């Protein structure tokens, strides 16, 4: 029994979830009373249903909207201040979200927009439009809408059209068959619904028996299956009342059409009616508006006038008179092809019968051909290019006015084999050398060439002599042209350096010829010009090519020297004067070699490191959870500076400004400076060398270095400033000067660097130097140059010292007088204050020494008097500089810098130490 009960329980089907088992002592929940069973919406507002499941809840008084009071009045906001941004409220603004939801009063469906909707025309709409067009006061206006409206053709259709498809055709390869099946003849169209299909087809086949074999036709269009669902409750095939019939009525005509079949009659449509009766449009009819004042009341009583009857038996009756009007339809229709027939069958959806029979196509007769016309194109005889008939050809060419200009524009027949091969992307034949010349020795070839030339010259001479009478055809002989061109080009060509300018790059042979040509032209040779032209070509061709070459050379000249250096690449927009240049560019051009050497010597660190200010994006900082290092700046990335597009300073490496300019960067500056003056090794570098010896004072150095960092900073920003300042303000003249200097100075040889970095000049430690060092650590820098000068140890220390001070002073006082200015520029270089005079010293080592001393003394003298006036002059200088050029500004700055540096010379030269330190490491 127990088992059975269990099985019974298993058999039971339980619905729903079981109630929670009641806890002990828990009160049973009271059922919610009916009046409290309210419906609330998502926001807790009451909703009162009006009966339906959805929809119709009231939001008014009883079902208060929002609050108890009903509508929440929007808080008054004075529009005094914000009149402008008053928004136009749409109905949506007064609707709840629920209204817009799926079951709301204005549901927002996801619908396909017009762009993506199918382009099949909405038939109902179309019909409505048609009807509207008919009924409208001005009939046919909707037709204009079609004309004006944008065409909505899908891409597919467009593509098909481009591929040659036309409406009404099927898609697929063209088929060999008869055209008439696709477009039935108008004659066959007349079948009047009774022709059995098989018969008509057969007759067609027989009729169009002769069709050309090679004519193909587009495949039949496939009628798509109409898949529109039946949504109404009408019977199958039901069509609503035809408005045209309803409006205009067809009654009263029915009985008149005696001779046409009833089936035809039923298909009488709007257009026909309108034509037959010039009635007014509008609602008229038997039941309406029949009054005494009605003018057109002919229909009302439907008078049966005789004119409506056929009084004469026309020849529409079969001519043989076999049947009379009772003849079978088939017979009738066959016999009366010309008659106007009504289309009987179902009119396809979207189509309506033409209201007007199309006007007969006017056939224009083809133009009458001239009697001697031959339907084959006749090519004019080609003149074989050759020496004999080149004149003829030329004359022909000129007469036709088609002077071939460029081989690229010539027709394909004008290409030679190589060009064609190139166009086809074929590789060059690897066969034996194409010319016998290849097998000849150099000498033989030369000889051959000369022989050839000679013969050609003779030939040409002959030709020229022949030409002279009829020179009309050739305005200038090649020689003349050459002279002319040479005159034009003149010296320009002389300085046109060899370059990558390849006007005939497409045709390598021609290019080669051209290059040779230019070379010879530069040398000023005359006759050799001819030599480089292709000897296989005709005289005329060669002349032409020569002309071409001259032109090319001319063009090349103009573009080359002045512009090409600037047109290396289109980095910036053409039409802006100023461009954004990263303020600190990684100086690739100049110091990458230094870096490479540094890497080679494994001197990583300062030398290989570039430090830039970099502004991270604010959001980036936020995401990294880091405070923005530059909270005020709006710059992102490397800071950029607006500069003149063609300023020299974009191409020069401006010494690094800002942030922590370390000794390494100073070192770099010097190096770049030394690049500018290859033969003048920087004073600082030399001092480096010395510094190596000065290990003893390394503590002092390390102390001083920290200072140097501080004190080094001022000069560099000023240099930077001068760079930007001049670039903006200065005439390009100065920039050019700078540039020239730059250009003059090539790259120093690698030995220099090695000498700077590697050389262990420990053996040079002379007592004199050390004593100097101890006496005057501040002047060590200047002194270094003197020691370097020629390893002259026996120069008196006082002398050296003097020279040192002199040089420093020369630095200071080099400006005021123009002569000294020149000196200064020669010595200093425009940009960088330190590292000047040493270079000169080194250049002329021994010989210049005396001279230098003399100079130094001179300067020493001048210095003294200048020192007295120093303060005064500084002011003076400023005014002067302002008055004259602004380019003195950098120099002034530099001079002031040097004064600074001279004050703290020891600091300065300690800065040069770092690479040595690095080396030691």
């Amino acid at each position, binding site marked *: 029994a127990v088992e059975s009960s269990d099985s019974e329980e298993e058999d039971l089907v339980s619905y729903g979830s079981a109630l929670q088992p009641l806890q002990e002592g828990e009160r049973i929940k009271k059922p919610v009373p009916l009046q409290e069973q309210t419906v609330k919406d998502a926001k807790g507002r009451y909703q009162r249903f009006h009966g339906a499941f959805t929809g119709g809840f009231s939001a008014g008084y009883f079902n208060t909207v929002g609050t108890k009071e009903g509508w929440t009045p929007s808080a008054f906001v004075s529009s005094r201040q914000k009149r402008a941004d008053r928004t136009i409220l749409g109905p949506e603004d007064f609707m709840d979200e629920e209204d817009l939801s799926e079951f709301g009063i204005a549901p927002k469906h996801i619908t396909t927009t017009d762009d993506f909707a199918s382009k099949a025309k909405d038939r109902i709409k179309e019909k409505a439009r048609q009807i509207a067009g008919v009924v409208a006061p001005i009939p046919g206006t909707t037709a204009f809408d079609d004309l004006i409206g944008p065409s909505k053709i899908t891409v597919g259709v467009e593509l098909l059209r481009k591929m040659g498809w036309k409406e009404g055709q099927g898609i697929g390869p063209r088929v060999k068959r008869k055209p008439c099946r696709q477009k039935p003849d108008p004659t066959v169209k007349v079948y009047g619904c009774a022709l059995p299909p098989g018969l008509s087809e057969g007759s067609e086949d027989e009729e169009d028996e002769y069709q050309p074999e090679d004519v193909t036709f587009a495949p039949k269009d496939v009628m798509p299956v109409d898949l529109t669902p039946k949504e109404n409750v009408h019977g199958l095939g039901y069509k609503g009342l035809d408005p045209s019939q309803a409006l205009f009525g067809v009654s009263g005509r029915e009985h008149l059409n005696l001779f046409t079949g009833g089936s035809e009659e039923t298909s009488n449509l709007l257009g026909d009616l309108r034509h037959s009766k010039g009635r007014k449009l509008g609602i008229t009819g038997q039941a309406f508006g029949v009054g005494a004042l009605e003018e057109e009341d002919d229909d009302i009583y439907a008078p049966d006038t005789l004119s409506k009857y056929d009084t004469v038996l026309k020849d529409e009756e079969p001519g043989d008179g076999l049947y009379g009007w009772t003849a079978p339809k088939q017979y009738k229709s066959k016999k009366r092809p010309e008659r106007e027939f009504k289309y009987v069958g179902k009119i396809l959806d979207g189509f309506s019968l033409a209201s007007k029979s199309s006007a007969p196509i006017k056939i224009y007769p083809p133009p009458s051909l001239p009697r001697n016309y031959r339907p084959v194109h006749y090519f004019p005889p080609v003149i074989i290019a050759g020496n004999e008939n080149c004149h003829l050809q030329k004359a022909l060419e000129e007469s036709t006015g088609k002077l071939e200009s460029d081989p690229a524009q010539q027709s394909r027949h004008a290409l030679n084999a190589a060009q064609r091969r190139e166009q086809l992307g074929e590789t060059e034949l690897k066969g034996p050398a194409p010319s016998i010349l290849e097998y000849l020795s150099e000498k033989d070839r030369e000889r051959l060439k000369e022989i050839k030339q000679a013969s050609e010259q003779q030939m040409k001479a002959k030709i020229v002599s022949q030409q002279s009478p009829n020179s009309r055809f050739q305005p200038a002989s090649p020689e003349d042209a050459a002279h002319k061109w040479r005159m034009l080009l003149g010296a320009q060509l002389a300085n046109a350096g060899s370059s990558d300018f390849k006007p005939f790059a497409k045709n390598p042979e021609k290019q080669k010829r051209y290059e040779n040509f230019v070379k010879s032209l530069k040398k000023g040779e005359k006759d050799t010009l001819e030599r480089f032209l292709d000897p296989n070509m005709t005289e005329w061709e060669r002349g032409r090519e020569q002309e071409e070459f001259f032109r090319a050379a001319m063009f090349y000249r103009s573009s080359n020297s002045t512009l090409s250096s600037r047109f290396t690449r289109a980095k910036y927009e053409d039409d802006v004067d100023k461009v954004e240049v990263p303020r600190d560019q990684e100086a690739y051009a100049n110091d990458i070699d230094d870096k490479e050497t540094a890497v080679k010597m494994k001197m990583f660190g300062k030398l290989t*490191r570039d430090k830039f200010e970099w502004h991270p994006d604010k959001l980036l900082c936020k995401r990294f959870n880091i405070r923005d290092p530059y909270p005020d700046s709006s710059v992102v990335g490397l800071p950029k500076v607006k500069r003149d597009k063609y300023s020299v300073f974009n191409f020069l490496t401006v010494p690094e400004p800002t942030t922590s300019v370390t000794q390494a960067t100073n070192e770099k500056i010097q190096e770049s400076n030394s690049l500018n003056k290859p033969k003048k090794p920087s004073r600082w570098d030399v001092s480096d060398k010395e510094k190596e010896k000065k290990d003893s004072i390394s503590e002092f150095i390390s102390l001083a270095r920290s200072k140097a960092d501080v004190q080094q900073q001022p000069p560099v920003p000023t240099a930077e400033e001068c760079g930007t300042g001049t670039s903006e303000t200065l005439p390009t003249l100065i920039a050019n000067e700078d540039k020239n200097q730059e250009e003059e100075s090539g790259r120093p040889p690698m030995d220099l660097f090695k000498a700077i970095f590697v050389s262990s000049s420990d053996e040079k430690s002379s007592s004199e130097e050390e004593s100097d060092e101890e006496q005057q650590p501040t002047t060590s820098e200047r002194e270094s140059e003197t020691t370097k000068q020629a390893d002259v140890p026996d120069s008196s220390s006082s002398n050296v010292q003097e020279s040192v001070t002199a040089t420093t002073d020369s630095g200071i006082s080099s400006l005021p007088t123009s002569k000294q200015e020149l000196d200064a520029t020669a010595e200093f270089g425009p940009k960088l204050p330190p590292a000047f005079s040493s270079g000169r010293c080194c250049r002329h080592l021994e010989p210049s020494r005396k001279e230098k001393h003399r100079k130094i003394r001179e300067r020493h003298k001048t210095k003294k008097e200048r020192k007295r006036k120093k303060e005064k002059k500084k002011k003076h200088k400023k005014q002067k500089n302002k008055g004259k050029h602004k380019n003195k500004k950098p120099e002034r700055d530099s001079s002031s810098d040097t004064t600074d540096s001279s004050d703290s010379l020891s600091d300065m030269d300690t800065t040069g130490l770092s690479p040595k330190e690095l080396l030691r490491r």
Partner: protein
Amino acid sequence: FLPGSIDSTVRCWDCRSRRPDPIQVLDEAKDGISSVKLSAHEILTGSVDGRVRRYDLRTGQLCSDYIGSPITSVCFSKDGQCVLAASLDSTLRLLDKDTGELLGEYTGHRSTTYRLDCVLNEQDTHVGCASEDGHVYFWDLVEGSLALSLPVGQGVVQSLAFHPRLPCLLVATQGQVTLWREDTFQPE
């Protein structure tokens, strides 16, 4: 949030906002970026133009260290003081992060054509690098001596990753990924 790396730029996208455009593009590199590493406040990139660039967001600086040969891989040391850079001249270089000085150089492996990874082990005691001869090389970080060459496979060791905390190495070669642990390791 992730910075991705493409054609000579590093682009930083914000994954939280769904903007398709990067919030910042680091386009300082002159050639392709081969490696990108992140620390708490830094973005470290190695580029084929032979430079290791470190974007320090905290100080707002870009430090670019010139190595010379194309960088294949970069990584931070665990203490965040050093930067390890592998380049195509078959050399690993350990650079001081702050000064850019060379702290160590590790050679012996072969890396001339492929983009190979370099790693530091979990305690920064050894430096590891994949090689084109099918080994993974390990050097002592301080001494620079070759500590171990681990034969992994025949072909190029394409990828290499070290567990951040455990002595555990993941190596990918020629379509197989192998996991290396110490001998004493007992899998649970």
